């Protein structure tokens, strides 16, 4: 295994395609976190993230030879596979609805209120909920580019789309996320106001 430590991912995949167990073990340890966190942020479920990670690496065992280094990096390829498995799961759960349904996601007019400190625990939980409520096509790109800090070109490879599409989805995804956070905050403030009013009355 020590001999493989400095071997690039692409070479590990070639070895995996030839049935090398050590190469697979090393590739798994090197890259499973990318896949797991991507699936976790997309689904919000550690159990599902585990299942998707397993599905992805089973697929790698089967199809390692299909990796094309000219088209994407290994992390982007793995996230692309994970994305397909996540989409399948969400699609089967929703069955009747489109997972890219945008009809209910029209952008509201810009409200210039500051978002404030989103790093506070309570605000962070609200941000997590808002992210999970984004349409999947925006959630994917926000998770890849903003949470996992994947370069746009790599994200485009993972999502099978143009770099320009990544940029536009990211812009819209962030705008939707901002609107959702502000809306959630307003709901919370209204609820607090009502509680206070009842208490005074």
């Amino acid at each position, binding site marked *: 295994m020590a001999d493989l430590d400095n071997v690039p991912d692409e070479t590990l995949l070639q070895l995996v395609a030839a*049935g090398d167990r050590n190469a697979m073990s090393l590739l798994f340890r090197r890259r499973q976190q990318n896949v*797991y966190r991507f699936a*976790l942020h997309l689904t919000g479920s550690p159990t599902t993230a585990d299942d998707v990670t397993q*599905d992805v690496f089973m697929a790698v065992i089967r199809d390692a030879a299909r990796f094309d280094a000219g088209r994407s990096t290994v992390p982007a390829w793995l996230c692309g596979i994970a994305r397909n498995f996540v989409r399948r799961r969400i699609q089967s759960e929703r069955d009747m609805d489109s997972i890219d349904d945008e009809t209910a996601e029209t952008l509201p007019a810009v409200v210039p209120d500051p978002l404030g400190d989103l790093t506070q625990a309570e605000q962070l939980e609200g941000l997590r909920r808002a992210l999970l409520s984004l349409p999947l096509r925006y959630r994917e790109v926000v998770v890849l580019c903003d949470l996992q800090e994947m370069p746009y070109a790599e994200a485009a490879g993972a999502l099978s789309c143009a770099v320009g599409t990544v940029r536009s989805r990211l812009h819209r995804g962030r705008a939707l996320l901002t609107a959702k956070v502000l809306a959630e905050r307003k709901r919370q403030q209204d609820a607090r106001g009502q509680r206070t009013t009842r208490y005074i009355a």
Partner: protein
Amino acid sequence: MTGQQERDLKEGLRALAGTTREMHASRRVEDAVLAELGRLSGTAHGLPQTTRATRKPALVRLLPLAAALVAAVGGALWTARSTPSPKIVHPAGFIALPAAAVLPEMESANIVRVSLPVAALPAYGVAIGDLKQDVVEAELLVAQDGQARAIRFVSDSD
């Protein structure tokens, strides 16, 4: 979205990413993956190709596709987490091929009919019950990149 909002959002997303920075798949996932690899070690990776001629001359060009299909169906055995029993395939409806998971999203597709040897199917996790013929007709859902994404088996009446 104002510039300040964007900065706040990015800061929040960085903090959100930080909450999962140390998280990883559970040990059972690695065990399952390595067990699968171990189970397959010693198994020939090359799968027999479909050599049965098709009825339509145009389909001759699709023989590589059919071979890819056989390989993909074979993958069903590999992806199963427990020892699978052969599935009885119902004629209606397409079944996603395991290999499709690593391919780009399907944007458009054509349905292509091919002939596959029945004898080859059970070994790859798919069986069609009580058939006397040597060859079954199947339809492939072939995506824009020429790669098959799904299959359905068809009867003579289809």
